[in-house]
């Protein structure tokens, strides 16, 4: 098992970060001056990595808090507590990193934004806040109080050359075409590009032109892929609740994806707990179907996300190339194979006053025994059907 490449190739110093030179110099300045910074931009283009890399450059310590902890002022205080005002161990400088402030809900969490303000006012340390979209009105006062720094989507060429480096390092031969397409599809999101690369390259030494066919699929599946990663790799159940918000498929699709991939992540007791959550989600799906009580969707979602996430206390750090389910295809192929059985049942259903399904299940097994012991039956069956019953 290998580590996720996004982790293995995480930048160690700010010069490792590709394509964000301007933003990095602005951010470094704000941090050294201890001026609050609000950095923003689409996912996967180096925002959080930059903070850690700059901290490494400056030998600062990073204290990461998640926006969901900002329910109210007390929450922040218990969380960061004295360390807010304490000097860092060994007299290092300290950066307080508030990730995903988009997660602070607008009205119901007014306390959350206020708590952030209090943090900015009280702390002697540098504060960096990260947002995907800082233009939301709930952040207007925060915007005024901090330096706004934009991390732009990365250019496809930059992603391409980074992927090429990873391939070289992993001893993977990949055609330029393959990497170009990966880079373009990521739309400036380096993290997703690396994830996609690892997903198609795992267990291979060469990436061929045919792998591009899989890429078409992969393109549509990335959001489901990320949802699975969030659920399986998170140790914070609450964070997983919105996992399927951006998924390209509905819950029925999510069931199939989770079902296929749970055993790749969980073993033993955890496996059984994860399946128990999936099973409960399915019970509610059945109840919706029968009772049309759509509010049960809430329970389906929570069992599918947090329910499965909590089945494993300590997520494995390994990268897992999640697979699409093969069940549907298998059912279809087997239906083709069972055509003879069905044809026999179809011929007999009037004669036996039963459904084809019933005959396949409850009559054909006995007919086979009778024919195999040379009992001649007076049934309206074709010669090929009698042969099938006698032989198979």
């Amino acid at each position, binding site marked *: 098992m290998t580590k996720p490449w996004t982790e293995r190739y995480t930048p160690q110093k700010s010069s490792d970060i590709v394509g964000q030179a301007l933003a990095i110099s602005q951010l470094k300045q704000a941090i050294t001056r201890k001026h609050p910074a609000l950095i923003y931009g689409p996912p996967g283009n180096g925002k959080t990595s930059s903070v850690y890399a700059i901290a490494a450059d400056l030998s600062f310590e990073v204290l990461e808090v998640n926006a969901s902890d900002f329910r109210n002022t007390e929450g922040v205080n218990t969380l960061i507590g004295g360390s807010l005002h304490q000097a860092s161990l060994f007299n290092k400088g300290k950066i307080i990193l508030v990730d995903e402030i988009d997660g602070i809900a607008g009205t119901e969490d007014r306390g959350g934004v206020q708590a952030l303000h209090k943090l900015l006012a009280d702390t002697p340390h540098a504060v960096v806040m990260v947002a995907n979209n800082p233009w939301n009105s709930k952040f207007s006062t925060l915007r005024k109080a901090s330096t706004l720094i934009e991390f732009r989507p990365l250019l496809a060429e930059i992603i391409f050359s980074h992927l090429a480096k990873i391939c070289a390092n992993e001893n993977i031969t990949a055609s330029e075409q393959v990497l170009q397409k990966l880079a373009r599809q990521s739309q400036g999101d380096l993290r997703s590009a690396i994830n996609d690369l690892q997903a198609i390259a795992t267990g291979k030494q060469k990436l061929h032109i045919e792998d591009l066919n899989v890429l078409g699929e992969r393109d549509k599946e990335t959001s489901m892929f990320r949802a699975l990663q969030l659920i399986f790799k998170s140790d914070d159940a609450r964070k997983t609740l919105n996992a399927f918000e951006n998924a390209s498929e509905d819950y029925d699709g999510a069931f199939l994806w989770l079902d296929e991939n749970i*055993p790749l992540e969980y073993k033993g007791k955890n496996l059984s707990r994860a399946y128990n959550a999936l099973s409960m989600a*399915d019970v509610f799906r059945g109840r919706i179907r029968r009772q049309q009580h759509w509010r049960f969707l809430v329970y389906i979602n929570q069992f599918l996300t947090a329910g499965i996430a909590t089945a494993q206390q300590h997520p494995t750090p390994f990268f897992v190339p999640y697979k699409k389910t093969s069940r549907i295809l298998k059912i279809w192929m087997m239906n083709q194979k069972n055509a003879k059985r069905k044809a026999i049942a179809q011929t007999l259903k009037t004669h036996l006053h039963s459904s084809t399904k019933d005959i396949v299940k409850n009559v054909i097994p006995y007919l086979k025994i009778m024919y195999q012991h040379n009992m001649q039956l007076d049934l309206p069956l074709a010669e090929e059907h009698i042969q099938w019953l006698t032989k198979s």
Partner: protein
Amino acid sequence: MVEKSKQLWTEKYRPQTFADIKGQEQIVERIASFVKHQNLPHLLFTGSAGIGKTTLSLIIAKELFKERWRENFLELNASDDRGIDTIRTKVKDFSRTASIGTTLPKIVYLDECDSLTKEAQQALRRTMETFSNSARFILSCNFSSKIIDPIQSRCAVFRFKPLEKTQVAAIITHICTEEKITIEPDALEALYTASEGDVRRSINILQSAAAISNHITQKHIHDIVSAARPKEILDVLLLTTTKDFITARKKLLDVMLAYGLSGLDVIKHIQQEVWNLPLADEHKMRFIEKCGEIEFRMVEGSDEYVQLESLLASFITILS
């Protein structure tokens, strides 16, 4: 030895008159009275497989319409005639013309109604009303709980009970005499246990055994039953005892598809096979407990395969 062609005994010995029917005495008595007074309400027959629902419906048609019963009796199966539109069209075509040779309404027999969705049942209810002057409906299902109230309230509901041991024995002994074969008493016992009161299954097993020998022993019955039951279910269970979940679930899907088994069929087999596993009795009992829980969830839920996977995963946990 060249045998002459035989009918399938389930058809050959299907009762043809009210008097032929074994068991369900009260139901038969009520229905016979409806027929005698030529006043048939819509009927809903509920009960497990092989205990006479279809047979009684056929007899109603034969008693009412005599030799013209085929023209006045429409047999449909909700699991084959998919979709309420197909059913409605067939019913419409059938009931457009008046009954032949009689003034009585025709009969529509709709089997496996519990496979219809709630919406389809609503549509069926309307169809029943639209054609109520020209046709009477006999609906048949395994579980009346799956039939919507508006339909139940429009029908006289009859609950069929599984046949008792003496009743099944009487049927089997009668067939044995007619077919000039013999069956040992403990084979008869085994036959009843294997069929759980399902007469059609017990006759099928009997005829399969008769293909092997004219003198049927308990061993013949056991051989037939295990030949007709997929052996691979035991393999799937053995895989869980080695904690190989991924192979176990793959095998499970293969078995289900190859034999056309539903989730409920599988859980029934699993629950029977548990006792053949090389495990401590207390583990077996915990397996059984889990089977019951999952069977309940299966009835409530929608994806039987997911429920079975959950069962296999919990077996692995019980053993570790």
